[in-house]
C-alpha cells in the first residue's frame, strides 16, 4: 500500500498542471470546442476522447468521428436554435456536449441534463427515429430542474386517473417505449407512464417537434395546456 501511495505521489509530482478551460467551467474532462459562434450563444463541445464523470464515475461517453459530429451537429443546432439566448439564460443552459454511447450506471441514455453546470450531454448515436424529439425532451429536464415550482408534480399527477401511479424513477420501470400513441389515453408514449417529469418532458417534446397525435384525449389536453402555461410563465415570448 505504501509503495502504491509512493508511486501515486511520484506520478502527481511529475505531472505538470494542465490548463483546461472547459473542465474548469463544466467539470467534464477531455472536451474540445466544436462551435461557439452561434446565434443563441449555445456552446457546442465534443469529446476528444472518452470521458467518465459523476458519482462513482457512473457516467460514460465516447469520442465520435468528425463525420458523425458534422452530420448530427446540423440536426442538433437546427432544433436548439428554436430556443432564444434569453430563454436559454433563464433556464440555465449554455453548453452542449456531443459524444456517443452515453450511459449512466450502465444504462444507455439519449442525454444527461445538468442545469447547475448549464450543460446537456447528448448521445449523437441515439436512435435516429426519435433523435430530434429527444433533444427537446432533454431540454425540458433542464427547464424542469430550474422551475420545479412551476411544473409541480403533484398538480400534474392529479390530471391522471386516481388509480394510476408513476414509478419511483425513470429507470425503475420497463415502460421505455418512445413511439407516439395514435390514440392516447392521457399518456402520449409508453415512456410517459414512467415518472411525472418524464411525462411532462414527453408532452413538451411532442409540442416542440410538432408531432402530437391527431386525436388528443381530455387528460392529455389538460397536460398540454399545463405545459404551455408553464412555459409562458418563464418566457411569454416563447413560441410553443
Amino acid at each position, binding site marked *: 500500500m505504501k509503495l502504491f501511495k509512493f508511486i501515486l505521489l511520484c506520478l*502527481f509530482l511529475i*505531472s*505538470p*498542471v494542465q*490548463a483546461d*478551460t472547459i473542465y474548469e467551467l463544466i467539470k467534464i474532462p477531455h472536451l474540445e470546442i466544436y462551435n*461557439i459562434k452561434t446565434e443563441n*450563444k449555445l456552446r457546442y463541445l465534443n469529446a476528444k476522447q472518452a470521458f467518465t464523470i459523476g458519482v462513482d464515475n457512473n457516467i460514460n461517453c465516447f469520442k465520435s468521428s468528425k463525420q458523425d459530429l458534422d452530420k448530427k451537429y446540423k440536426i442538433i443546432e437546427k432544433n436548439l436554435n428554436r430556443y432564444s439566448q434569453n430563454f436559454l439564460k433563464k433556464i440555465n443552459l*449554455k453548453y452542449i456536449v456531443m459524444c456517443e454511447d452515453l450511459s449512466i450506471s450502465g444504462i444507455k441514455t439519449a442525454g444527461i441534463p445538468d442545469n447547475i453546470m448549464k450543460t446537456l450531454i447528448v448521445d449523437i448515436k441515439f436512435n435516429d427515429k426519435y433523435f430530434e424529439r429527444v433533444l427537446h425532451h432533454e431540454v425540458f429536464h433542464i427547464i424542469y430542474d430550474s422551475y420545479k415550482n412551476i411544473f409541480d408534480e403533484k398538480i400534474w399527477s392529479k390530471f391522471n386517473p386516481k388509480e394510476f401511479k408513476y414509478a419511483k424513477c425513470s429507470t425503475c420501470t420497463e415502460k421505455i417505449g418512445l413511439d407516439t400513441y395514435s390514440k392516447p389515453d392521457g399518456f402520449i408514449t409508453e415512456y410517459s407512464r414512467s415518472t411525472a417529469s418524464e411525462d411532462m418532458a414527453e408532452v413538451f417534446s411532442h409540442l416542440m417537434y410538432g408531432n402530437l397525435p391527431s386525436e388528443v384525449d381530455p387528460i392529455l389536453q389538460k397536460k398540454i395546456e399545463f405545459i404551455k402555461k408553464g412555459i409562458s410563465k418563464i418566457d411569454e415570448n416563447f413560441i410553443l
Partner: protein
Amino acid sequence: MIEKIKASTSEKIIFLFVLILGLFSITSFLLLKDKCLFVKDYDPKKIDFKDPNNIAVLNVGCGNVIIELYPEISPIGVERFKTLVRSKSYDGVAFHRVIKNKLVQAGDLEFGKKGNIDYGKIGTGKSGLGTIKSEIDKEFNYLKGSVGLARTQKYDTEDSQFFIILQDEPLYEGEFTPIGKVIYGIKVLEKIKYLDKSEYVLRPDFINSLRMFN
C-alpha cells in the same frame, strides 16, 4: 635560479579561451538570474491615455502593468475594483493562483496578504464589502490581457479577486465579469512565479502596489 619560460602562442590562445569562457559563464549566470532582464518597464507618465480616469497601474516585481478599465461594460465590477485600489487594499497581496501562459490571479485580501498568508484558505478570502452581481450580459472578447473578476462556481459571488489572462479565452465570455484589459506590460505578468505541478503557488509573488493613474 628559475628560468623564465615564455608562453607559446597556443598556450596563450588556450589561456585567453579559458578567460573568455569564465567571463561568459559569470555574465550568463548573473543575467539568467535576473528574470526581468528583457521585460520592458512602462512609465505611465510618459503615455498619453484617452481616458486617464479609467487607467490602473499595477506594479509588480518586473515593472508596471497598465490596465484600462471598462466601466461601460461592467459598472458595478469596475466600481468595486476602483474602491479597493483607492483604499490601497491590493498592496502586498499575493498572485496565489498562476497557470503558466494561461492566467494570473490575485486579490485575496483576507488570506493572501504578505506576511499573513494562509495557504490552507488562500483563494477563499473576502474583502468585507460583500459580493456583487455578475455582469456578463454585454459582449466582450476575452483576449490575451483581459482582466476579469473571479467568482465561486455560482454567479453573483464576485468580490475582490481578479484574474488576468495570458492567452485568449473565448469561453470566458458570459462566464466572468470583465473589468478591463492590460494595454501595456503583459510581459511583466508572464514573469510572475508559477509552479509546474500546481495552480496554487507556494511562496508566491506579490503586488507591490495598485493605483489609479488619476
